[in-house]
């Protein structure tokens, strides 16, 4: 008996990764960890694109991944810059302490 890894496995893994990332955003309060969770979600997206593209024999999926990777990298740069700017002023990366405005 041999074990065949079907595209469904990849889809399930991607869905799990995405769920872990989404959960992390909801429960973690450190901005850096929230970043990592977002990266996890984007990687789940990439996995879905690649697996679906491979299963369907369609190159568009792989192409989409390149664009997602580039945009994700650009967004991390922006995000880290914002965190550094905040950290310089208050020595903390917790989002709960950021509550100057309300209402």
């Amino acid at each position: 008996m041999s074990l065949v890894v079907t595209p469904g496995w990849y889809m399930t893994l991607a869905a799990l990764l995405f769920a872990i990332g989404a959960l992390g955003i909801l429960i973690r309060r450190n901005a850096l960890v929230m970043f990592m969770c977002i990266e996890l979600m984007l990687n789940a997206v990439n996995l879905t694109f690649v697996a679906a593209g491979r299963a369907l024999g369609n190159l568009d999926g792989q192409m989409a991944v390149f664009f997602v990777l580039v945009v994700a990298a650009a967004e991390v740069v922006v995000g880290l810059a914002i965190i550094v700017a905040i950290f310089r002023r208050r020595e903390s990366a917790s989002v709960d302490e950021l509550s100057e405005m309300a209402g």
Partner: protein
Amino acid sequence: MGFEIDYLAIAPELILVATIVMVLVLDFVLPRRAKYFTAIASVLGVTFAALPLLILAVDGGSREMFDGSYTVDTFALVLKGLFIVAGYLVLLMSVSYIEGDRYYQGEYYFLILCSILGSLVMASSRDLIVLFIGLELTTAPLFMLAGWRKGDMKSNEASLKYYILGVLSTALMLFGMSLVFGLTGEVSFDGIREGIGDAAAGDASTALGLAVLLIIVGFGFKVSAVPFHFWAPDTYEGAPTPVTAYLSVNSKAAGFVGMLILMYLALPGASNYWAPALWIMAAASMTIGNLAALRQQNIVRLLAYSSIAQAGFMLVPFAAAAVSGTDLSEAFSATVVYLVIYSIMNLGAFAVVIAGARKTGTGDIDGWAGLGSYDARLGVLAAVFFFSLAGIPPLAGWFAKFVMFRSVMIAGGVSTVALAVIAAVNSVIAFYYYARVVKSIWLDGAPATALGDRADTPAGSLRLALIIAGVLTVLVGIYPTLASVFGDASRVLAAG
């Protein structure tokens, strides 16, 4: 093959790219005291980018590139025109505001031009990848612009909140898109539209529903519709005011355009999933946005909640038509007309806020008391824009509300009439808080001690922005045909 490049069709984008590069180089070579040349270059660049749009509009017809994934038709031209005019007004508002700060001017214009470029790409996108790139190019520079005042804690907070929710919404939307790709095997809107029927019929219909909902949630964040709106008031308050104006007009409009073309061109076959979601978002945005706006003291926060409520109004035609299953083309053109009018009057309102904040030295509505008595012109303009937002004839806003209600009446049906009733009640609530600002300006007495410089006259560029927005608001209100041209142009997309 479709890989020949039609340079005239993408001339506006090319001119903007050239301007962006030029602004960066200028910023590098110019001495500190001459940095305002970057502002002049940006304004000129955006003006020149509008010229090919006119040529293309006169020429008419639809030009497709890259196998149809980048299309320049009359619908795209109308929206590009809107984005360019709105971007132009925001640039005019920014000049004096940014000059007053000690921060870097060159990068500011670089970032805002990048965002305008992204929204132009967005209007032409006819496949998921181009749509995604356009949307990200529109929003990513805004994360930085929201945090422009690096030393100000409020600005930092604004930018981090906007960033985390913006990136989260992107991830949700992308996961939805990847599922749509997996189900249909296509990234082009046409391919998805044809493939979606099979996907909806098979056992994959749950996955399709999930995908559509994820996409709607993602766009819900971008257009700040309730219940995905909570970032908006804080980000609007903390960001520099011209950036807030840009966020509430261009970035919101880009989100709307993306959502509508995706739903209309690619996913009409899945409307049983997205129509109820849009209905709920429309009703909730109008009601919660307006109720929250009632108790605001800060004028920028008031406009933030007002823009949430206006997003609800903008969703109404599409939600109504989709829920009742009628033809979407009427709703599509109604939304475009609303979007155009909203953009102009909201930018005008923000220009008044910038000028008024300098004069009164405060963002509190009570602090604006008696503004009309010491600056009648600004007071009149404030009344024009705020009454227009409330939808009072003969100012442009009434026509936006009119086309919205007309499209709902065309759609008919019980659930759409319910939505129309909610919209009507909300129009009345909205009038109260818009009128409160005007009352404070005209009917309340001015405080004896002035916080700001009452003699301050707005800079020439800001005055120009006020005049353009004011003239357009009055003109469109008196001759609504001017705006309905945009609606008719966008109906071409519906036919094709």
